[in-house]
């Protein structure tokens, strides 16, 4: 019997790789490195599943079934203070589990298919900072589907993992407020009150196990905060770990640069459907 060992919601800004490489650290880097140690030394999963918030096709959910994955650079490359350095990452895949995910999604009535894609920075940035290249990895899309479908996709993933015999960690990167347009390079502490409100509400809902109430957040506040991938990482995780499973807040940076970097860990609570 396989199992999902834990789920994580983590930031994925490419600047994190620069801070880690330079040894500067900082709270978001240090918490990722701590998660990496936890995964490598205590959880010791057979496979990681990572759902990049930057892989957003519309027609369905996709799984990369390759035996080996290479990164590609989908962040801005130019001299600047944040995230402009070239980084790369490779990981072996888990084709068997990938195929099982596809079949489980289809059995649930969802549009799921294989696609050769690789690892964009939304996936490989946190994996690189966590230092997990030796663990087989299955990239999946977060997609632009409804929250309800994303929840079902998460449930299908959990069921497939449990039937697979694999011990798996699921990582769904993202940010809370995600107003990159307000983050001027020369204005490093831009304050965005609606974003701070949104982040506070999100943290309260996530840590109290009310993930499904995310759907009830005021539409105008949601529009202003523009959370990464439309909050779908939380609906995916809700499907994987259980709709009522609370997330433990490991780190929150506050409303810096008009982006809400938060890190949550989710223990698996409810049985799969």
């Amino acid at each position, binding site marked *: 019997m396989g199992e999902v060992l834990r789920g994580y919601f983590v930031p994925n800004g490419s600047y994190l790789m620069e801070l880690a490489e330079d040894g500067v650290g900082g709270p978001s880097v240090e918490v990722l490195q701590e998660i990496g140690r936890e995964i490598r030394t205590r959880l010791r999963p057979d496979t990681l599943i990572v759902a990049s918030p*930057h892989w957003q096709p*519309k027609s369905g959910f996709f799984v990369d079934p390759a035996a080996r994955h290479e990164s*590609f650079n989908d962040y801005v*490359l130019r001299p600047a203070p944040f995230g402009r350095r070239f980084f790369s990452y490779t990981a072996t895949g888990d084709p068997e589990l990938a195929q099982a995910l596809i079949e489980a999604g289809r059995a649930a009535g969802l549009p799921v298919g294989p696609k050769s894609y690789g690892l964009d920075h939304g996936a490989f940035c946190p994996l690189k900072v966590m230092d997990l290249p030796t663990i087989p990895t299955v990239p999946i899309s977060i997609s632009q589907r409804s929250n309800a479908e994303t929840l079902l996709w998460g449930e299908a993933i959990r069921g497939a993992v449990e039937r697979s015999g694999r011990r798996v960690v699921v990582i769904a990167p993202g940010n809370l407020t995600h107003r990159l347009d307000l983050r001027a390079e020369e204005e490093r502490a831009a304050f965005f009150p609606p974003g701070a409100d949104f982040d506070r509400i999100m943290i309260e809902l996530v840590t109290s196990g009310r993930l499904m109430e995310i759907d009830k957040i005021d539409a105008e506040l949601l529009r202003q905060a523009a959370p990464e991938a439309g909050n779908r990482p939380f609906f995916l995780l809700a499907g994987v770990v259980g709709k009522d499973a609370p997330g433990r807040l490991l780190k929150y940076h506050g409303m810096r640069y008009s982006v809400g970097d938060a890190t949550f860990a989710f223990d698996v609570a409810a049985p799969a459907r």
Partner: protein
Amino acid sequence: MTTADAPEFVYDAIRKMGIARGVASDGGTWTLEFHERHADDSMTLVIVAPDGTTRRLAATEDDFAFADDTVCVHGVAALTLRMTPIYLKKLRGFTRGNIPTPDIAGPSLP
């Protein structure tokens, strides 16, 4: 690396548009503008020739063939473009559903 000064693929989040630039075998620079991704993941593609003339068509990821440093756009006669591999891979990812960190950030992403 020469990527810093002349990015060959950028994402404009205000216009929700990916813009790639490549060089054909005759030295002419072509531009591929991805104006919209549709529900079936087909894309509205506007191809801008070196002389400024444009051609608008619907494309899917299957219409692009990627090699190490070239991309061939099927259905467009003789349009094989050379690009820096790092941007070629970024373009490949975009055709398969990637939404990059925007070079031009918009108020609502993607």
